[in-house]
């Protein structure tokens, strides 16, 4: 197992493997996204309560749920960097941070817009939106720390520690925000997590959308990690050959 694990760690092996997988991932994303969007926009019936705005759910819920996964993923990559000193894990951790910030940002925007027609204001201190907001600050903190430290591996370890500390705090922040919020406002009249009470023709397209956005997440992560690999291995021979093979752009 150990050989496999260390082989997995070599950036070049990851780069070549990802070049094989990328076309398939793109195909899967396009198919899933097409079906999901078509279904969500055109076929899902109007919701008796929120009308057409239920279609916003098909963007907000997938993006929000994956943004919640970004921080733990960054913490795991950070732990691997700290414990096994694997360069690739740090490259993944460095690439996850901006993607996580993007996901959380979009989740915030779509959540606020969706909430607007319930609370009548663009921003309401709803529990979910607030914990997304704080998570967004945590991501910005990691990115700021990453760019502040010049030397590559000191930044890697420092961000790993911050990612781990942050990942431990995300659930605490989530519950304290929810605990703080629900006591003031009655739980919002309709539930944002749709899977439970809604009929299948509503949550089936949602599952498709979630998987589509998930594949997109994997693609975006791979693309950024590949750039990171090229950047850090630019002196090694295989990158030089690769550059010479590329047609001059």
């Amino acid at each position, binding site marked *: 197992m150990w050989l496999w694990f260390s082989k997995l760690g070599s950036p070049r092996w990851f780069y070549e493997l990802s070049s094989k997988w990328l076309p398939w991932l793109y195909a899967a994303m396009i198919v899933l996204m097409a079906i999901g969007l078509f279904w969500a926009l055109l076929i899902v019936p109007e919701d008796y309560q929120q009308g057409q705005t239920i279609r916003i759910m098909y963007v907000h819920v997938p993006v929000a749920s994956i943004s919640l996964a970004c921080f733990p993923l960054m913490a795991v990559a950070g732990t691997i960097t700290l414990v096994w000193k694997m360069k690739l894990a740090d490259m993944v951790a460095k690439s996850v941070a901006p993607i996580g910030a993007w996901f959380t940002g979009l989740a915030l925007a779509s959540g606020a817009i969706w909430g607007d027609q319930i609370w009548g204001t663009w921003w309401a201190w709803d529990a979910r939106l607030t914990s997304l907001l704080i998570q967004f600050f945590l991501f910005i903190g990691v990115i*700021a720390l990453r760019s*502040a430290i010049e030397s590559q591996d*000191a930044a890697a*370890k420092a961000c790993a*520690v911050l990612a781990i*500390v*942050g990942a431990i705090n995300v659930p605490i922040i989530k519950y304290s925000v929810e605990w*703080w919020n629900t006591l003031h406002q009655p739980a919002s009249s309709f539930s944002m997590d749709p899977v439970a009470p809604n009929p299948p023709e509503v949550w089936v397209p949602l599952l498709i959308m979630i998987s589509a956005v998930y594949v997109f997440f994997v693609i975006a992560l791979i693309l950024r990690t590949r750039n990171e690999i090229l950047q850090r291995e630019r002196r090694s021979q295989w990158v030089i050959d690769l550059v010479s093979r590329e047609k001059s752009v």
Partner: protein
Amino acid sequence: MNKPVSSHAGTDISTWQAFCATLKRDLVIALKRKNDLLNPIMFFLIVVSLFPLGISPDPVELSKVSAGVVWVSALLASMLSLDNLYRADYEDGSLEQLLLSPQPLYFLVLAKNIAHWLISGLPVVVLSPLLAYMLYLPSEAYWTMVLTLLIGTPVLSLFGSIGVALTVGLGSRGLILAVIVLPLSTPVLIIGAKAVTDVMFGLPIGNHFALLGAILALALTMAPLASSAALRISVN
């Protein structure tokens, strides 16, 4: 009488002595630099007195926000004085001596955090009733506020120590410290401020303290470990 160094029994005693010596050293340094003692207190006073100017002098208005104002100012005051926790030691090399000590770094970092809390956290707690009075906080909420601050401010110091340990090697560290530390301290702020406001409405606040205690326990065990790891990285 020179204590044997590596005998196991010896290390437990000398760990305690190293802990006390570091604690005493930091307090002595703070006492010698008088203005470092005043900074957190003055900052706390100024920030709190800014709020009535910003909101309104009307007592009813102020008493509603007083708990939040005191808590946010306490948070910012402890954040402000975090910076010189490791900065001076990093610059003159004592931090390296700290890392090279055979005693577990956990206790030494804990000693420094406690010293920092005594310098910046405790004065804020002691001073908070005066400021609460200024903000027309209802009298029955005083004790709750002092108690929540007493439990909350150490957590701010402990989490802050992680942030400052991560950024000790950097040049521009003020902003990054805030961006890293403040999100981590939001739970304490939420629960603390809520406990005080809930007491004002006469609601039970038993579980508020349970939560605060739990977070303090977590911070006490986890934060120094993270700070030690961060220090080893920054001094690398």
